[in-house]
């Protein structure tokens, strides 16, 4: 059962995830601290998937050669407008395929992803387990790991 009007969900999520410009949301009195949304959003890979409240264990170059971890410049950019306009509470990314090229064996697998912004103190926005994980040492030097156009979906339909 939902709670928030879906037209508002579409507007809010589109505002968050399609913007190419940094902007700040300032709550009213008693509403907590302002926070700044800093595009572009970046796709990060995780050997252990996170949870609703905690980040996972990010892949690192030592065990996933060809992958760069960390914030704000790790992972790969999802472009100036990460997601398309939300409709029925949902949208997809990336608009252009995102690819890593392995320069050695990935001795840790890839189980999940997270999407963070590019702030100096980056903010985590989305997380999720892959529909099919890649196991240990399956990816080797010369291989590529790609997320096809629209392969990642986000939904606030039941928000």
């Amino acid at each position: 059962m939902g709670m928030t009007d879906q037209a508002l969900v579409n507007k809010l999520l589109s505002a968050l995830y399609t913007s190419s410009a940094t902007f700040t949301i300032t709550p009213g009195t008693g509403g907590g601290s302002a926070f700044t949304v800093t595009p572009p959003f970046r796709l990060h890979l995780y050997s252990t998937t996170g949870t609703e409240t905690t980040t996972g264990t990010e892949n690192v170059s030592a065990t996933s050669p060809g992958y760069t971890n960390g914030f704000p410049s790790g992972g790969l950019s999802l472009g100036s407008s990460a997601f398309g306009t939300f409709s029925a509470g949902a949208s997809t990314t990336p608009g252009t395929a995102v690819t890593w090229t392995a320069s050695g064996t990935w001795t840790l697998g890839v189980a999940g992803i997270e999407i963070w912004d590019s702030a100096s103190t980056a903010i985590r926005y989305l997380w999720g387990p892959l529909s099919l994980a890649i196991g240990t040492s399956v990816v080797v030097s010369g291989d590529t790991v790609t997320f096809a156009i629209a392969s990642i979906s986000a939904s606030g339909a039941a928000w």
Partner: protein
Amino acid sequence: MIHVICQNCGTFDIVGPGHPAVEYDAEAGQHVLTDRTALKHSHAEDCEPHPETGHYPLAFTFLAAVSTGTGAA
């Protein structure tokens, strides 16, 4: 679902649950592509391993990788 293409011979495989290269990790609650040698490219007659690396370079492409939802309020 992962689309795997051999970068050497172009042989491709659609990999998901039920594929011989995939096992189910009950602890993680997730299907995992675990066996590179079970992919179709290893059976391609005209495909030879790269002379320097000794393996077939593969392109792994996630077709429908992740669905994230905010859940019901």
